[in-house]
């Protein structure tokens, strides 16, 4: 599904990602772990087009997407969340959700004037779906609140819900459980497991090993920008290379 080959990116002498190669095939939920600074978020940024790679390829469903701007990557079907949530602060929870579906007719300026009926229909359908998802993540009582008024954990749930709303083929989650309390973590795990049933593929950066074990079918380990190991959660937990990376030097 997603293939990364020889991907490299340096920032002024620091090799953030170094000749990284990995492939996500049929795993429903894959994990990406590694010590701080190992290049996980940079890898996400490279895949989603936020920064251009120095070298290497990224292929999604066979098509090359490295070098594509972020909105094109999203249109290919990859949606991501951010380590520090990026919700739209001055828009309500519901509006945040309604933004997500791709290729809405109402988003084209000219269509506004000539396709009122179609737009109304789409909006109604999207609204229904949004309300359903808002309920799934447990934010129904907040649907008309400005997103900036939500707690951090609630914002993370909103970001997840919004990503799901975009009907993606693959979701990249960047530390979805960082900085939120255990009950929220439980909620998030539940939502992800539920969505796995509908066929969405997840690729998750995580530090919390409990979450990784609970969710992931397969885990990739990065250290210093390189992939040093991959396997099931159990396998990489016992992998000496991984242990050394977390403890060592």
């Amino acid at each position, binding site marked *: 599904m997603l293939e990364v080959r020889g991907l490299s990116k340096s920032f002024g002498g620091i090799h953030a990602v170094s000749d990284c190669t990995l492939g996500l095939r049929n795993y429903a939920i894959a994990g990406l772990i590694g010590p701080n600074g190992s290049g996980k978020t940079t890898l996400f940024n490279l895949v989603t087009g936020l920064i251009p790679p120095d070298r290497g390829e990224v292929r999604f469903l066979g098509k090359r997407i490295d070098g594509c701007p972020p909105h094109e990557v999203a249109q290919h079907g990859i949606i991501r969340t951010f380590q520090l949530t*990026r919700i739209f602060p*001055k828009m309500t929870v519901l509006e945040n959700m309604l933004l997500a579906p791709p290729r809405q007719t109402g988003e084209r300026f000219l269509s506004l004037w000539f396709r009122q009926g179609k737009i109304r229909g789409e909006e109604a359908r999207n609204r229904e779906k949004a309300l359903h998802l808002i309920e799934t993540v447990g934010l129904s009582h907040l649907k008309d609140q*400005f997103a*900036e008024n939500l707690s951090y954990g609630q914002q993370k749930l909103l970001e997840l819900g919004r990503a799901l709303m975009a009907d993606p083929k693959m979701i990249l989650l960047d530390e979805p459980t960082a900085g939120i309390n255990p009950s929220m973590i439980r909620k998030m795990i539940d939502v992800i497991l539920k969505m796995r049933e509908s066929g969405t593929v997840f690729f998750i950066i995580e530090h919390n090993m409990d979450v990784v074990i609970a969710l992931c079918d397969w885990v990739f380990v990065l250290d210093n920008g390189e992939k040093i190991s991959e396997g099931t959660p159990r396998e990489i937990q016992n992998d000496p290379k991984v242990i050394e990376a977390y403890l060592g030097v």
Partner: protein
Amino acid sequence: MDFLLHLGVLIAIYTIFALSLNLEVGYTGLFNFGHVAFFGIGAYTCALLTLQRIPFEVSLLIALAMAGFWGCLLSLPSLRLRGDYFGIATLGFGEIIRMIFQNEVWLTKGPMGIPGIPKPVLFSYRFASLPQYFSLTLGFAVLTFLFLRVTLRSPFGRVLRAIRDDEVAAETLGKNAFRYRVKAFVIGSVFAGLAGSLWAHYTTFISPGDFTLLETILALLIVVLGGQGTAWGPVIGAVLLILFQESLRLLRLPAEWTRYLAPLQQMIFGALLVLLMIFRPQGLIRVKGKGSHA
């Protein structure tokens, strides 16, 4: 009574101008400080064409198209810029356009200006008298308000607001931020051109000195006074500002004082803008949204 109608016309015209700026600044987050350029392009185009005996309806449409065209042209290179840079680029553009009005005497009669702009005739109805002109401008103001309201409440408007709030997040959801910005800018420019055209036909005489930074400052003041990113904000702001600006005329001060009065008034505008930004940047109108701002 005539004075009230005069106020009404000015309020209507400035409302259109401010609404268009609000679309760009308040809703899409574009720091357009050269907005007056499109006001001027609309004014000159419409004036020059109607003086050539071209019917008002056609002249107006062409003026709008010109404003939109130049808006597109300016925005393509500059919209890739980060906020402050875009601000300076548009500021500079406003000045350049004024220089063009001043220097291209063969076209615009330069500093001597264009006198005798005829009263508009729309669908065989001549808007010559003051009440008639008031209804014309009021009509256009209402149309502008409704048009922009529909636009901003639509999914399209939603994307604009998202881009304003967090462009990166919008992009990662598949929205091509650049394209939306250009569209917002062009729409804003078209309506600025509308305001300019109406203004030219009202004052019947235009010259390059009418299209300076002052106009943009006034529009900005209107927008922030009323509340950026709200629908009624610019309207309220326009009413307040025009009332203030024109009320000084009522005082009938001696002529020698005007030399001091104009800059003094503008100093007040400048100071007001600063004070507003420090103490109440969200304007006079609260944006509805359950609970106060964080």
